[in-house]
Every structure is written in C-alpha cells, then in structure tokens.
C-alpha cells in the first residue's frame, strides 16, 4: 500500500481519517494529502482545513506545546496535535484523529471542556499571610520546586480525558475533580505561603479518595508532571495525616527549609474556613444581566 500511494517525485501521500460530526453523531472522513517534511499532526489538519474542509473545527493557539488547546486522540492515543510529529507515526497506515473521548463533543475535533472550568472555580483561592508595609516574601528555591512542577500545567486536560474515574462514570464528575485539579490542590497545599489547610477538602469536596493510582494521567501529561507520584500520593498521605495528627500539617509546611520563611507565615497562620472564603468570594462576584432581545 505504501508503494501505491507514493508519488513519482518520491512524495508520500498521507491518509488522514478525521472525525467529523457533532453531538448528534458523526463519522470519520478520509482525506488524502501529500506528506511534507517535518510536519506535526496539526500542520496536516490545517492543510486539510485550508484546502479541502474549510469548516473543519479544531482548537489550537500556540502550535508550540505551550497553551494546551490542541488535545485530541491520535490513533487512539491522547496527545497534543502540535507536538506529535508525523515522523513518529506509521504513515503506511491511515492515521486517525478523533476528539477527546472524555468530554462531550461540540463539533469535529472540538469538545466541551467546561467541566474543568467549573471545577477550577470551586477551588478556594490562594491565601498568603499578610505582609507588613514594605516587606517582601522570602522563599527558597528548594521550597518552591515542588509547587513549580505543578504550575507547569498547560491545562490541556488530557489527564482528565484519560482518567477512568470520569471517563467511564459520567456521574463521578460531580464529586471528583480529576488529576489536573489534584495537581492544583497539591500545588497550593505545598506552596510555602498558602495558609489554608487543603487536605480535608481534597478528599471531602474533590473526591481524592476515588483515585486508585492507575497513573494513566501521568502517562499522558505532555508537561511530564508526575501527577500521581508527586501530587496525588503525597496529598493522600497528608489527608491521612490530617485525620490522625492535625498539627503535622504546619510542621510539614515548614520542614526542609534551611532558611525558613519569615515568621509572618507562622504568625499569621489563621486559616479561614471554606465557608468564610466562599462567602467572601460570593461578595466579590459580579453578575451580568442576561436578557434576550432582537427579532
């Protein structure tokens, strides 16, 4: 087959099977297009869009693996289209590109990822200690390393897409935040300056307990974040600590620091309750006034 599709000039033809459709259904459409040197999957999708299917829906922004917009399943494997080079795929066979299966379809390769934004809104804000006038935070690099790993997250939601807890059980979406947000909770929990205890709410409100450490999330993370080993497992351990030893938390926050953060951290350690926080946030909330108009 590969010899049949090769052109005289030695140029190969790519067979791309792209999923086309919307929430009511759809199917793969096949496009044949000459291969070009050094392309990534997104380039090929773009050429198909420019030449054959101008209304093909696909999300992308940076084309550099930095924004996390172009998540899809390539030959069934969750990946960023802009970081998957064609040369890593077997082009003797047709290449399929389908939307992320874990989210509802909007159109073609575009899915409805609003679930993730809803979870993000529920996570209580970062809460630093108060600084005196002119004072600045001091933190050691070793202490910020852990949280910095999670802050590399580009919110591609591929980990959310593969996590079987939501992928296979739609109803779990209500009680389970998913790996991306466990990484976010761990980031805040391990942030040297965050004063809110996030252990209990990680399990009670965000369903940490439902994760059974299959590590599928870690495997697909394009940023190489060790979601399970560095976020979920330590967070689970801390949840256990929270049950048995309510003061261990503060100890942990300030261990391993050759030069501890200023006394301010400990002094102003007065975590608000989640309810207080939410009330405060609700006050700041502004609404718009939707009305339907026109004729």
């Amino acid at each position, binding site marked *: 087959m590969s010899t049949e599709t090769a052109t005289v000039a030695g140029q190969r033809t790519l067979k791309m099977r792209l999923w086309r459709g919307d929430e009511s259904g759809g199917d793969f459409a096949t496009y044949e297009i000459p291969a070009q040197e050094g392309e990534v999957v997104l380039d090929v999708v773009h050429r198909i869009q420019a030449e054959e299917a101008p*209304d093909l*829906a696909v999300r992308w922004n940076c084309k550099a693996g930095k*924004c996390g917009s172009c998540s899809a399943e390539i030959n069934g494997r969750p990946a960023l289209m802009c970081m998957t080079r064609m040369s890593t795929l077997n082009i003797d066979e047709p290449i399929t590109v389908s939307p992320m299966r874990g989210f509802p379809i*909007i159109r*073609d390769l*575009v899915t409805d990822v609003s679930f993730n934004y809803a979870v993000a809104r529920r996570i209580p804000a970062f809460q*630093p200690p108060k600084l005196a006038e002119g004072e600045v935070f001091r933190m050691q690099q070793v202490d910020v390393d852990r949280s910095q790993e999670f802050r590399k997250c580009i919110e591609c939601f591929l980990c959310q897409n593969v996590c079987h807890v939501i992928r296979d059980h739609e109803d779990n979406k209500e009680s389970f935040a998913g790996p991306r947000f466990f990484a976010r909770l761990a980031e805040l929990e391990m942030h040297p300056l965050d004063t809110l205890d996030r252990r209990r709410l990680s399990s009670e409100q965000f369903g940490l307990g439902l994760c059974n450490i299959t590590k599928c999330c870690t495997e697909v993370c394009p940023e190489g974040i060790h979601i399970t080993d560095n976020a979920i497992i330590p967070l689970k351990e801390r949840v256990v600590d929270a049950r048995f030893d309510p003061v261990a938390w503060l100890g942990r926050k300030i261990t391993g620091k050759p*030069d501890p953060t200023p006394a301010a951290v400990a002094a102003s350690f007065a975590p608000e309750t989640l309810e207080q926080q939410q009330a405060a946030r609700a006050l700041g909330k*502004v609404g718009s006034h939707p009305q339907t108009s026109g*004729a």
Partner: protein
Amino acid sequence: MSEFETHIVDVLIIGAGGAGLRAAAEASAMGASTAVVCKSLLGKAHTVMAEGGVAAALGNVWPEDNWKVHFRDTMRGGKMLNNWRMAQLHAQESPDRVLELEQWGALFDRTPDGKILQRDFGGHRYARLAHVGDRTGLELLRTVQHRAVDVGIEVFMECKIVRLLHDATGAVNGAVGIWRETGKFIVFGAKSVVLATGGVGKMYKFTSNSWEGTGDGHALALWAGADLIDMECIQFHPTGMIWPPSARGLLVTEGVRGDGGVLKNIDGERFMFNYISDYFKAETSDTIEEADQWYENKRDFRRPPELLPRDEVARAINSEVKAGRGSPHGGVFLDIASRRSPEDIRRRLPSMYHQFKELADVDITKDAMEIGPTCHYIMGGVRVDADTAAATVSGLFAAGEVAGGMHGANRLGGNSLSDLLVFGRRAGIGAAEYALGKSGEVVIDELQVASVTAHALSFFDNDGSENAYSAHQALQDTMQSLVGIIRTESELVEAKDKLAELSERARVVSVEGHRQFNPGWHLALDLEAMTAVAQCTTLGALERQESRGGHTREDHPLPDNEVFGKVNMATSFVDGQVRLRREPLPEMPTELKELFEEAH
C-alpha cells in the same frame, strides 16, 4: 434581524491575556461590574507563550538597579520614540506589579537569599527579568487567571467581538460578538470598553504569534474612530526557529543569549562584533574576551553584542544571510551547547530543550540551533493617554500589546509582560472610574447591531470563489515580502496597491458550512481586521522616511532626529479610508532628559 442575547455591564474587557485579566481584576476591585470576552478558552491567550521574563527594577540581583535606569534603557531601546510618560510609569510601577503577583500565588525562581531571581536580557543594563525557567508567561497568565476567577469575574470565552457600538455622541458603549460554538450573536452594553486584544503577527508569514494575533483590537479601535500610532514599528525577533518548515517562526527565547548563547555564521564566526552601532558602542564589548567575562562580572565588563536590542540583532542576521554566510536553511547558528553544561541548559531552558527535541530533532545541549528573524511584536497601537489608558474616543481604553507608545520604535525583551501588568491595572482603573462616573442607563442601538450582524452573515451569501485561507496567505506573502524587516519606497507603494486589492478580496470571501464552530467564517472576520491593520502599517512605513528601531528603510538607512524623531505616525479611519497624519511626540520634562546626558 438575527436574534441575540444581551449583557449589560459597567466595564467590558475584550481580551483575556495578561493585560485584559489584570484590567478586569482592577475594575472589579473598584466596584464596577466587569465582564471579559476572549476568542479562545480562558488561559490560552498568547501571553501564555511568553518565555523569558518580566522586567522590573527590583534590584534583587543588582542593587544598583532602579526605575531611572530601567526608564533610560527602555527609552534608548525604543530609539526615543516612546511616550516618555508611559515609559516612566512603567519603570516606576513594574516592581510593585510583580511583587503583587506573588501575593496572588505566583512562584518565581529564587535568589540564594530567597528573593525573586532576575535574568539578563538584551538592552537591559542589569539582570532585571523576573522569571520562572522559560515559561514566565504561563506563570503570569495563570496567576491573573486565578485572580480573576477568585474575584468572580464573568468570562465569556470562545467569543469573538466583531464591532464596537457607540452612542449618539460617538462614545463607545458596547460591542457585538459571535459565540464560536454556536455561531450566535451576543451583544454587550457597557459604559466603557477596554481593548486588550494583543498583537498582529498573523498578517506575516513567519511569526511567533498564535492564531489570535490578527489585530482585531487595532481594527476595532480604528473602526470606532480612534487613532493608532506608529503601526510601522514592528519587532522582528532575531531568533525564531527556521527548520523544519512547519516550525518556522516559533520563538527561541532571548534567554538563550542572556544565559550565554552566542550567534555564529557558517564560518563559526561570532559576527555580532561586526555590527555594533555607534549608538551602543560605549556599552558593548568589542572583544570576545571581554564579552565572556561579562556574564560573571557586570561591573567591570561591557555586555556582549549578542545582547544588543532586538532590532540591531535582527538586522545583523539579515545581513549575514544576504552576504552568503548563513546556515543551510537560511538563518544563522545560535550556540549554547559549547558554552554551558547540558545540565545547566536543561534546567535553565527546559522548554527550549523540549521544543527543539520534539519539533526539530535537535538536542540543544549538543548542537547549535538554526535561527532567523520572525515577526514577534507590534510596538505601534492604539493611541492612549499614559495615566488612564484612555483612547482618543470616549469610553474606549486600551492596554497591552494593542496599545501604542510605551515601547517607541523597539521593545526590550521582558518589557511587555511588565507593560501588561502596569497598564492593564491602569486601564482597569481608568475604565472603572469612567464607567462609575457616568450616569444613566446604557442604551443599545439596535440598528447598529443589525447592520453588524448582517455584515457578519454576508460572508455566507457571497457566492464568489474567494476562500478565506488563500486570501489570508496572499496577505501574509505581501506583508512578508514587501513590508518586512527591510523596507523600501517602491515595494511599499506596491504593497499599498496590493492591499487595496486584498481588502476587496477579503470583502467577498465566501464561507462554506454553517455557523457552528466554523473556523473559515472566523478567519473571514479576522481578515478584515488584518487588512485594515496592514494598511496602517504600510502607510506608516511609507511616510516614515528614516530608519528607527523596528522600522528599517533601505532607502533611508539613518534615523532623522530632526523630523521623524519628533513625530508619531497617527492613522485613523476617515470616510471609510485609512488616513495618516503626523502628530508631535509629547515633550519629555527636563529632569528626565537629564538622565540621558549622564555618562554611561
């Protein structure tokens, strides 16, 4: 008339990059009801791509640094075409804006004594860029995004604004947008509107910008009657990837040079030593020996010429390639492999390591990168008042890359992220104060809305064979070849004619399919913005008969300080046509002028 939903707010912010979200946080804190609209999902704006850092004279690494030095560097980098007041406010306020990010959860890299670490970048006298590895933009955007979410700002994502609305006096009072997902219209009534739409890179073929950089905000301002200034001043970043073709244009952060990387031609020569202009002679090393000592000892040695401002470096690369000393794919080499240990490179430049490994199969700890100039940033933009960010039309404000003036003819690296924070905040205050001080209800003019929606839908009725993608390619080819890094009168005149043709082509583009998530339709709408902006750039480039910063004329190779150094090129829309006039540059007060007379 098409059906639409309506939302009434005090302040409408168009754009959810660093500038838009920072403005939103401020407007909301002032008690104005605030909504943000953006073309992509929240958190994906172009700001996320910024790599090297955010410039602020914190003095953490070099206590000698202060706002005056930063101000001077910025003005000199901008070839004195900057709005001095913006440059001053920026230099004075950026340290506070960066520290404030820490209070919102940002985690910058640290110095040994636990403060924010700062790195070297071109044109900055001291190591001044606060950073997180080479993903500073992500850190900044995530931080303001979380902040905006925490204060409960309403975000309308994947929604493109196509026109602004105005009241009977001409004051802006809302906007019409389209939901990407459904293709339905959405109308905002607002007492004030902040443009924070970013740049214009997508009118060029090779650019570091994301798809969103289509100059929408510039065009919205223009169509609303506001002035743009200095649209000819466009920064071609010296180091973009050039191979493989699909990665062409992608940015290679200046951090590579700040951290020790050097530029070489095919003969292995560090050619930048041959391109030190008189303007920067006093502060630039003229031997390799001196340059190499600077990284460790900035007090006694002058900076290497690889770290000259971007316009200088981009022109030098261009000349090397033209002289036949380029790399195999038409660029030059950027070498850090022979200068730093593999561990250092991977730790300090993780995403560059990743980017080359994944996209070009090049291990930058072993081999040199092939790079060349790429369209990166527009210095020109909406003409604003420095203190309030108000545009020249009432009710309209602008901040971030879409605003003009701050960076003059050339922007220093790191000065954009700080600009977003300083002027994002100021625009938020300006727009909120304006809105809260304005009495009466916002009244939406349904006739205006009807004409906008009819226009937007007209692309579905066009039955011509014009396709948005090919018209866009033609625009990119024209700008790249005729209004690129080196310009000349005959080519600019040719570009002007071609653009007239292209705007006609853009008007008759026909769109296939239906309204739901239809990229072809959105490109058709982007295209009208891009052609309008391209016309401003071309007119400005024709009229500015000198070379200054990001505007280089082969036929006028020197700066003309007497005539063009004293004016902004203002473009505006008059009777449906882009018109240009010269506006005098605001005069700098004496006490600031004196900063430029002191010895280096």
